[in-house]
């Protein structure tokens, strides 16, 4: 905490201020770290000078109220002008870091850096649901957290350093009054920090309640059709009303709990004010303090309490900023998957899984157990098995979204860990079940597969993928931006564009992850033709649910519970009469089913 760092009260605070500053400096990068440091020191100095300036009011006002004290008053006024001028100039210069655009440029650089980082960190970490969403948020919101850094710190300094220095300055004028101020105001900060855990608890309870309410609301809107069909929507949705009532009760509870530290701090300020009032008046009646001096102290005290009153608001923002810095630091520290040396490129494209075992980061049981298989070059291998058996994990191991804990995956006899990431991506084309098209033109979306492809090559790929007819029907043909009309393309059309992309890339290895699972019949036929074009002369791995689509495979691997249970060609597997034969029989029965039978 920046605040405590400037207080004699806490050593731990000093180190955490250093941490925050280090993270901040790291975030703005080496180009701007010195400038940032200068700006921060400028703000601190300005706050200190402003405190001294306030203290000057006491001798100034006292002198002015004393007959014949005008000359002294004028020289104190000159001192006040000087201090104010210096404080304003320092602050003005420090704020230049924001207003000259250096902070914005720094966050721009930071986001570019974070974006580049995302390309190399292991996909498993990126796609981890919780962390993944956070990363997107960081990428989208860094600026919001950092752009206000100086503004917030400025206000924090004004609330903490200014009173401290005002009290010190006042000590020179009247040590009793100075001491009195010193006793009241800076005490607020450690007091607040002492009570802060209660505030945090209140917030956590509230956040939890909101999370539950939010989930219940979503469930209500998603299940609305069913609830209404059952006559349990609206007033009759008793559970939802209960949720809202419970939320209100917790909000009230959390408000009471959370307000306590604030009330404590506020009470101290008010009591401090009254104490200064009483003691000051007592001193005046004793004749040891001029009434005008007391009046000046009132002016100072009133001045100091205003920034303190908003202090809690700023520290809340400071905490948000610290959390963001923490996240950014973690992201920047993530290492890519290790690259083994010497780096090498395979010359053949057969694939081998060699006694591979793999457990997901947070899972307890392995997803893949001791899996071995050989996929010869130019062969077609199908992975079949119930959902969740590990088929997709195997393809992700091949794409090196993560590394196996035991065993190795090889292409052309080379361990994947030896092949540089970019080159590995060049070797493999993937057609996913969920097609992702980019916010760009049709042409750019296909050309993405090979940026240097000529127009004729792009066209040829589109033709082979059965895309030509519908692309030419689009409002702006090849130049139609898919961001705007992406939703108007059917699933099959989107899938064919993604196949055209893969065709153009012309990688020696092709991975198909249930590419025809969610298509209507019409599209299915066209997609099937497109796939036939794609798999020619390639090493192919296909994940298939519909077994009839892979009866022609060179090799079918039947997987269950992350283990290989059967392998062979369709006919042989049928004869063997195991798991595969049972699946085949079940699907055959389904195929023949018809309503009204």
């Amino acid at each position, binding site marked *: 905490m920046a605040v405590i760092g400037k207080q004699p009260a806490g050593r731990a605070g000093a180190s955490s201020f250093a941490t925050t500053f280090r993270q901040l400096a790291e975030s703005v990068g080496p180009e701007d770290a010195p400038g940032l440091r200068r700006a921060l020191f400028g703000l601190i100095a300005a706050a200190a000078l402003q405190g001294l300036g306030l203290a000057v*009011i006491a001798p100034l006002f006292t002198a*002015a109220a004393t007959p014949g004290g005008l000359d002294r008053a004028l020289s104190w006024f000159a001192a*006040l002008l000087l201090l104010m001028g210096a404080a304003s100039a320092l602050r003005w210069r420090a704020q230049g870091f924001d207003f000259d*655009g250096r902070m*914005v*440029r720094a966050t*721009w650089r930071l986001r570019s850096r974070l*974006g580049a980082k995302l*390309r190399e960190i292991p996909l498993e970490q990126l796609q981890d649901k919780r962390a993944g969403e956070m990363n*997107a948020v960081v990428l989208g919101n860094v600026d919001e957290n950092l752009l*206000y850094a100086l503004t917030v710190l400025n*206000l924090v300094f004004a609330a903490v350093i200014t009173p401290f220095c005002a009290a010190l300055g006042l000590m020179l004028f009247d040590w009793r009054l100075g001491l009195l101020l010193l006793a009241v105001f800076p005490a607020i900060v450690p007091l607040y920090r002492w009570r802060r855990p209660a505030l945090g608890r209140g917030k956590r309870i509230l956040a939890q309640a909101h999370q539950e309410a939010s989930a219940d*609301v979503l*469930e209500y*809107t*998603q*299940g609305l*059709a069913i*609830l*209404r069909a*059952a006559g349990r*929507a*609206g007033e009759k949705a008793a559970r939802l009303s209960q949720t*809202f009532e419970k939320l*209100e009760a917790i*909000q009230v509870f959390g*408000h009471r709990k959370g*307000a306590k530290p604030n009330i404590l701090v*506020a009470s101290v300020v*008010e009591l401090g*004010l*009254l104490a200064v009032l009483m003691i000051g008046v007592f001193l005046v009646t004793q004749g040891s303090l001029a009434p*005008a001096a*007391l*009046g000046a102290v009132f002016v100072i005290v009133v001045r100091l309490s205003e920034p303190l009153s*908003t202090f809690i608001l700023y520290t*809340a923002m400071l905490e948000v900023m610290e959390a963001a810095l923490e996240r950014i630091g973690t992201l920047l520290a993530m290492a890519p998957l290790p690259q083994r040396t010497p780096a090498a490129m395979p010359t053949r494209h057969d694939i081998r899984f060699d006694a591979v075992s793999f457990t997901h980061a947070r899972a307890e049981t392995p997803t893949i157990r001791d899996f071995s298989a050989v996929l010869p070059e130019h062969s077609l291998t199908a992975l079949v098995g119930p959902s969740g058996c590990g088929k997709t994990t195997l393809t992700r191991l091949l794409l090196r979204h993560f590394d196996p804990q035991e065993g190795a995956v090889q292409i052309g006899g080379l361990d994947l860990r030896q092949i540089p990431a970019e080159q590995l991506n060049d070797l493999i084309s*993937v057609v996913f079940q969920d097609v992702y098209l*980019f*916010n760009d033109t049709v042409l*750019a979306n296909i050309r993405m*597969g090979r*940026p240097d492809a000529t127009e004729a090559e792009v066209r040829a790929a589109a033709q082979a993928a059965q895309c030509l007819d519908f692309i030419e029907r689009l409002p702006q043909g090849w130049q139609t931006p898919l*961001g705007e009309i992406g939703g108007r393309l*059917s699933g099959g059309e989107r899938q064919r564009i993604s196949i055209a992309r893969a065709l153009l890339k012309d990688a020696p290895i092709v991975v198909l992850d249930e590419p025809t699972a969610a298509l*209507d*019949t019409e599209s299915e036929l066209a997609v*099937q033709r497109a796939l*036939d074009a794609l798999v020619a002369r390639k090493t192919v791995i296909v994940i*298939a649910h*519909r077994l*009839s*689509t892979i*009866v022609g495979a060179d090799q079918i691997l039947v997987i269950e519970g992350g283990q290989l249970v059967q392998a062979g060609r369709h006919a042989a597997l049928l004869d063997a009469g195991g798991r595969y034969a049972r699946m085949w029989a*079940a699907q055959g029965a389904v*195929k*023949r*089913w018809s*309503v009204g*039978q």
Partner: protein
Amino acid sequence: MAISEQMGTEAPGAAAVPDRRAGRKPSSPWRILKPVRGQIRLAMAISAGSALSALGVMVSLMLVVSALLERPGTMPWGALGAAALCTVASYAARLGAFNQAHYAAFRLERILRIGLANRLARVSLGYVEAQGAGALAKVIHDDVKALHVFVADSTPLYARAYVTPVVTFALLLLFDWRLALVALAVLALGWGILRGAQRRRRDMVRAYNAAREKVSAAVVEYVQAMPVVRNFDSGQSSFGRYQAALDGYLAVMLDWYRAAGFPARFSWLMLGPMPTLTLVLGAGLWLSAMGDLSVPRWLGVLLACTGMAEAMMPMMMLRHMIEKVGLSVARIEEVMAAPDLDDAEATPGPLAFDPAAPALRFDRVRFSYAPDLPPALDDVSFEVARGSVTALVGPSGAGKTTVARLVPRFWDVTAGKIEIGGHDIRKIGAERLMQQVAFVFQESFLFADTIAANIRIGRPEATEAEVIAAAKAAQAHDFITALPQGYETRAGERGVFLSGGQRQRIAIARALLQDRPLLVLDEATAFADPENEAELIAALSELMRGRTVIMVAHRLATVRDADQILVFERGCIVERGRHAALVAQGGLYAKLWQNYETAQNWSLGAARGGI
């Protein structure tokens, strides 16, 4: 003096930076306060009282010093007591206003949420589908929550921002009109320059919002599609878009700083307390040197002069947050204004269904999703006999799903009518209609409740035996009993993973328990995993037995034996009849059937002629 006033979390410097979400026009947030208006007014009145008491403190302090100047040896008990009293009163009132505003805000949240949930229970389901369940949930939860900063945090500040400057200025005039004008001049200069800085604000806000939206779209694309990005893009083009969005954002921000930077910085400086204080001190020195100003009056001005700007600053800081609240208010009002499903024509009292009439009849139905869109259905007429199976087939976008959704009144027809048992469905009444129709759609939704409760939602009074019987008929009993807690296992996010086919079978059990005569199926087997497909189909057969069924089907083999097949193309029925006749006819259905057969017999790699 006010420690606990501002609990918002936005940066104060934000006054110079515009807000975020573009699009909708913000609404005035005051209207939404209606249900708790009384309590808010109370909070504001208390807050105004607190502001007045705070000024009372200043006056008392001045009186304390004044009394001491006259009689230095005596305690000025009267003025001291007044100062103490005003301090305590101001503090207590501030807390009171803060609490009242917060309790009002919490109450308002609940009232609005329940109101919105009730609204959604009456609008057409089509509206819900078009808006999206997620977006509506966001309105009910997030947008209502976003009101907090306005209702709870700002309303007391508003009262202070209006009361304090006016009364303060009056006080200053009372103390010394010349010094009052000095204080006012500083304030006016600061404000004037700030206004100047905000002249281009509207354009800036628009540019800023647009740039921000581009950045978030690029981030979403870049992060979500990372596997595709890495496989096809090596990051070049999507990263380029991300970078371009960042560049655009940077340009807007730099432009903003260039245009508004100096005035914002300058007025920020002027509106701070020190310039006013310094000038009032200087002017006071001059006046008192002239012998024209008494110490107590001067002191009174010094104590009160910075209060004007101070009371107004929090409003400046909160201004853009309140504008953002306006956007949330607009979204809430939009949902509240969504039209009811028109039930005005519903015939009251019991309704006799004519057993001789067809179970379902479409009579020259025309339907458009929006007035300016071409009709999704045009002149569609057909009848479904009681207990028969009707299949809707055709290319995607031909109108099959629209037909399925018109029956349970997701939307109402634009022209023509739909009848069930001889009654126009608009006259049956929403509740009674629901008792006639059951539907199972592509993806079935399970509530985060026990499996038993999920089935029982079809008929809350069903006994346990009935629930189990329905589950058995839906081929779900076996896998349910294999779950850790059987029927008491919780489904949903925080519960066990169920496959698409398993969820679908629970939905079928639900429909079986409801036991309604008319059944609408839309692609009910689309997301089944092949593993469980056989069971799913057995469950469906059980559900269809003895009911009138209308089903949308892509896999044509399933409808070979339907009593009636309706072939749709571009919103019209182009062919109708039974399978064999339609195939023989050689029209659209025959072509679809042929495509289907070809696709069924395709096998990957067969065409590539071996290795």
